[in-house]
């Protein structure tokens, strides 16, 4: 059985099913209750689960810090940060406490928190509403970072994240929330964390992307001359190197696409891993198609900043022509 859902609806379904399954799951955040969240991801959930869905005071450090206390003492907190760019106001709670509680107590306490955050550009939002900080989260030992690219994965990955005993940063591409309806399995559906997926098989070049950029990449390869293989990374950290390496060993070429700034971005890490373990399979340098090292521009310029089909296609051409 499957139904046709948008990504935001798939997320709501995962939250509903997990709250019904496990009463320790507590959903809270700014405006998530009565109004159902700024993107309506939690719409009507408070009516269904009045003991499990709460509006929180406007305080990101508190939302994340309370998650540490809740999570370490028996709850499964699923806080929402209204926009990922406001997680910075609670970033210290993630770095200083949530991520290291298990390690510093040698396993006696853990924080099974899943932080849901709308992220990325493409919806003409206000300044500081569109940043992509996945590399920042990925750099913190003890955090997992997940970015679904389609409704089915959104449900499956969020379910897995909520059930995961460790803190998971769950980044939801704002531009994908209502982009398309797709088939989503009804009932129990999990997608394991830490596993990438080959979403298109090909022989000439590997394109690695995630979230909203996965769709740009798919459009780009449809028009490209080459037979491209596309890997949806899905979990940023811990990263599934094996799937990427296997693909690159086959194609000999790789293009990594992300919306985040280039320097220190995940493309750099992926390139390094390819160098470590598949260097001699490469027939061309790994290409990066990324955002620029500038603050995410306000929306009059955001299309110029974000990698699009054309830039990705040029990246593929560079990889093929080398």
């Amino acid at each position, binding site marked *: 059985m499957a139904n046709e859902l948008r990504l935001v609806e798939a997320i709501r379904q995962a939250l509903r099913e997990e709250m019904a399954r496990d009463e320790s799951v507590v959903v809270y955040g700014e405006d998530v209750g009565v109004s159902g969240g700024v993107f309506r991801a939690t719409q009507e959930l408070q009516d269904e689960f009045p003991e499990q869905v709460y509006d929180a005071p406007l305080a990101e450090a*508190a939302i994340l810090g*309370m998650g540490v206390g809740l999570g370490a003492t028996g709850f499964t907190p699923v806080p929402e940060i209204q926009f990922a760019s406001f997680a910075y106001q609670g970033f210290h709670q993630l770095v200083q406490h949530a991520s290291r509680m298990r390690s510093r107590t040698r396993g006696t306490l853990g924080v099974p928190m899943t932080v849901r955050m709308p992220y990325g550009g493409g919806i003409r939002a206000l300044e500081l509403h569109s940043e992509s900080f996945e590399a920042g989260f990925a750099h913190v030992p003890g955090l997992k970072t997940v970015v679904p690219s389609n409704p089915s994965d959104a449900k499956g990955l969020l379910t897995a994240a909520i059930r995961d005993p460790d803190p998971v940063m769950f980044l939801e591409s704002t531009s994908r929330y209502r982009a398309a309806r797709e088939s989503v399995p009804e009932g129990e559906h999990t997608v394991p964390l830490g596993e990438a997926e080959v979403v298109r098989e090909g022989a000439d070049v590997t394109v690695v992307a995630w979230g909203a950029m996965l769709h740009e990449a798919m459009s780009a390869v449809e028009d490209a001359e080459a037979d491209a293989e596309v890997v949806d990374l899905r979990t940023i950290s811990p990263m599934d190197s094996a799937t990427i390496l296997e693909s690159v060993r086959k194609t000999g070429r790789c293009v990594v696409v992300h919306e985040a700034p280039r320097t220190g971005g995940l493309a750099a890490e992926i390139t390094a891993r390819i160098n470590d373990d598949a260097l001699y399979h490469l027939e061309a340098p790994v290409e990066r198609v990324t955002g620029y090292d500038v603050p995410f521009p306000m929306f009059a310029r955001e299309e110029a900043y974000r990698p699009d089909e054309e830039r990705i296609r040029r990246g593929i051409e560079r990889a093929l022509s080398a």
Partner: protein
Amino acid sequence: MVRDQVADFSVEYVQALDEEGDLDAAQAPDVDDDQLVEMYRLMRLSRRADERAIALQRRGESGTYAPAIGQEAAQVGSAIAMTPDEWMVPSFRESAAFLTRGAPFHRLLWYAMGMEEGAEVADANFPPAIPVGTQPLHAAGIGWGHEIAGERKAALTYFGDGATSEGDVYEAMNVSGALDAHAVFFCQNNQWAISTPRETQTRAETLAQKAVAAGIEGVQVDGNDVLGVLSVARDALESAREGDPVFVEALTFRRSMHTTSDDPSVYRTEEQESEWETRDPIVRFEAYLRNEGLLDDDRVDRITDEIEELLADEIDRAKAGREQVVPAEMFDHVFAETPPELQRQRETFEREQGDGEVASAEEGMSGEERAAGGEVSGRGDVREERETSEDEEVSGRGE
């Protein structure tokens, strides 16, 4: 222009036992004789434990330690008011509170020796929080959980006067008030945030009034009066258990250094120190217990001997544990289940440590991994041994 007054507030101050050890019965908590003597023993134990920990650091046998000397009444009086299954959420200066809640001293030493083993949670104690003022939010979360679950319990968090300048402390009080979190915010105003005195920390007349803006109750107590602290802490916990969080400001004084890396003589006068010496929490409580006939020289000597014996055993245990440190365990518990890349890093580490040879690329090793790991000695503490006796009297000043 006539303006209407729309709010008014006051801050109450509580003292049960004055500096001479005389009791104000109206403020005194109901405590039986055995508990009174036990509280005295715990304060003495904590004082001596801190002295021993400082001496170990001076000898190079331990790392940085943050003593609670002078704050024993604030910690023992509040910690003993909690039930054993209520969560304590401490900062890094809560040795007396940990000991009161039954944590063995060797665990505190392990933490000072740089071992995560010391932060393994025993019973309902959170590990020490090193960042200043972040942990009150954890108590808010725990306390909110009690509200959600309908449990008649409260979480108590410790922090200092400096922490009240941090935004998280206000956020914690504010969200606790808004969400009826079962939380007690126990501020030990020990007058110093390292070298920054209380007056430089804030223009607020009291720290307790910081609760007012969050809409929760704030109260001051003489933090060197263990009975006043117990009384206030009991009331605060009772209130919190009903969903009304409380902020307690315990006025006390850090008699020794911020940590063993600090030298208070740089910023503090001997006059200030001797002034607070007369308000010492142990001296005052002992005078009271002697007046009540609960202590005499014999009993005090017996307690002293028991404490020395206990601490000697615990120090031996800490040292023995330090010898058992396995470096590769740093890879354990980063996640509940170790991801492939981390497992690979661990295997590389163990291989390189095992035979001291650098593994090759053919073995599936990355250049980065080849470069790393060779320098790990496996024994954390390489401080120079000094000739100071462990039993040397500790002045409370840095060297």
